[in-house]
């Protein structure tokens, strides 16, 4: 159980957003880079749900894409079950690829509208050569059944289904290669709440039945709290805090986490007066110096403007913040 299935170390990704060469030459501009993910490290244990939360532009989806190999990493390493993904190629990579799958945010864009549902779900089976002939059809039927649709739906096209049903099809497709690990990138943010509840319950059931490991990406803190066993909070491409699921909410350590929790609308009507949140996420092209959060941070010190904070262990996990570092030294 304690064994790490996915290990990410110092993962960094830059995007080159420079103007074309000739413009640069004429306008005497430098090359420009956007750092979408900066020095992110975490581990996901087998069977757990690790969630990444953050606002838009915090690098959640970029990490997801790098984990499944849709994007290359600029620096750092991703290790899946002891195999380094950078540098692995050929049959070894192919074998690894079968073991992880992805569910995307928008079920209207992630299913090919010209393919029948059965073909969509069978594609990974054919790609990895898992089954042949009538076995494929049977397996597709089984999968549709697992996700709460009927085997007859294999003949239909995606447009005949609602958003929630399409997301079920996307889940069936992800399951068809019998993966151990699924990256879910905002799987319910395009869905209505009542449908979201159905999909979240389905994902939990599947995890219990098949022992799946999830990397769950969302901007919705309540959804994350419901799903995750451990949570990483991202801010401007940096991992500011990692903590055990529920404890992140009861004992938030990093000032950004505290701010984010404060901003969640209160459904319990406790009448809690929340602290007003200041400012917005800065432009990632010119992130603030030192700790990226310092312009919005109530605890910011001089040091925060100069140095980037390192990871310190906290009661609930770890966080990157100088204020916490000082607290720990004092105690």
């Amino acid at each position, binding site marked *: 159980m304690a064994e790490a299935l996915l290990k990410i170390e110092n993962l960094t990704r830059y995007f080159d957003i420079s103007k074309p060469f000739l413009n640069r030459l004429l306008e005497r501009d430098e090359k420009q880079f956007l750092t979408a993910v900066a020095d992110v490290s975490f581990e996901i244990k087998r069977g757990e749900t690790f969630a990444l939360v953050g606002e838009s532009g915090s690098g959640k989806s970029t990490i997801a894409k790098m984990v499944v190999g849709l994007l290359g990493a600029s620096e750092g390493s991703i290790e899946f079950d002891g195999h380094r993904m950078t540098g692995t190629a050929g049959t070894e990579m192919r074998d690894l690829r079968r073991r992880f799958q992805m569910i995307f945010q928008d079920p209207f864009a992630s299913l090919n509208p010209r393919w029948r549902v059965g073909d969509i779900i069978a594609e990974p089976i054919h790609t990895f050569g898992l089954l042949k002939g009538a076995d494929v059809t049977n397996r597709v039927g089984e999968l549709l059944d697992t996700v709460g649709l009927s085997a007859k739906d294999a003949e239909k096209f995606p447009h005949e289904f609602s958003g929630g049903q399409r997301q079920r099809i996307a889940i069936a497709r992800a399951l068809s290669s019998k993966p151990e690990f699924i990256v879910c990138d905002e799987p319910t943010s395009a869905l*209505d709440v009542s449908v979201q509840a159905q999909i979240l319950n389905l994902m939990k059931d599947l995890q219990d039945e098949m022992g799946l490991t999830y990397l769950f990406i969302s901007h919705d803190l309540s959804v994350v709290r419901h799903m995750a066993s451990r949570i990483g909070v991202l801010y401007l491409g940096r991992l500011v805090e990692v903590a055990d699921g529920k404890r992140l909410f009861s004992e938030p350590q990093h000032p950004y986490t505290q701010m984010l929790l404060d901003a*969640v609308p209160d459904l319990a009507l406790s009448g809690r007066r929340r602290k007003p949140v200041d400012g917005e996420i800065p432009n990632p092209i010119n992130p603030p110096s030192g700790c990226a959060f310092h312009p919005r941070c109530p605890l910011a010190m001089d040091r925060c403007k100069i140095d980037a904070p390192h990871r310190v262990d906290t009661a609930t996990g770890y966080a990157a913040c100088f204020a916490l570092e000082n607290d720990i030294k004092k105690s």
Partner: protein
Amino acid sequence: MTDALLSVRNLRVEFPTRRGVLTAIDDVSFDIMPGEVLGVVGESGAGKSLTGAAIIGLLEPPGRIAGGEILLKGERIDNLGAEAMRRIRGKRIGMVFQDPLTSLNPLYTVAQQLIETIRTHTNISEGDARKKAVALLDRVGIPAAARRIDDYPHHFSGGMRQRVVIALALCAEPELVIADEPTTALDVSVQSQIIDLIKEICAERGASVMLITHDMGVIAETADRVAVLYAGRIAEIGPVRQVITQPEHPYTAGLMGSIPTLTQTDPRLVQIPGAMPRLNAIPHGCAFNPRCEKAFDRCFKERPSPLVRNADGRKVACWLYDAIALRAQEHTDG
């Protein structure tokens, strides 16, 4: 009930199509009192935005108001001509739309857009209009408003743009602001800022707000009363605290249970089976009957009308609460 600012009576909106007429809003009635914030929630396709569009006269053809009436301070506005409606829109009813990028014209500066709107509705000089625009931008929390007013919309971030849109909606000092998913395109930290702003600024000016959203959390924080829409009909309407803490309609109860919260302990969410019916397949009787655990014979035959539940104006459209139904239930139980 005559002192309501806005009264919607038995509103019906239809879309004639080649395969028959679709009824998107069916017999919806509610009032908005002066200074009140009415939340309108529902899932996609419930008719939330259409209700807003019908009130402000912006239904896109072939959609049309097929029945009922809309009264603004006792005057009917649903049958006004285009010109008369144009004078109400912006002046007496302001709008804030979901996507701040599409509700601002990218080719004009913020100053031009604000000044134009102010001068359309009030008879003041350009210089005064500009002063007023700067003051408004300052009020909605745009830093260095006097300098930033000459920027184009793309110079502003999403949250700042939504602040500009709020300024634009408020510049003619309307009596009612219809905010259609004003925070859906924004991040949580910015969302809370915008909600607080709308609440504060409307309270300050005594404007009523009709807040359309799919997010119960936003409603809980902002609204005084809430109307829950399902398949173009009002399922439940009443004071926010009552509807959220003790939902009576099975749909509202299911909806509340299906929202994960920060204090929840149950590992599973309540789920409502199925999905909202399409407009061409709304079931006979109560529209919620195929998904309702408590449905009985009458629900499949007759459509429930909103039943008054208490003196606070709470109404629930569900046969479970009908006196006859209650008595019948006692019979079988006892």
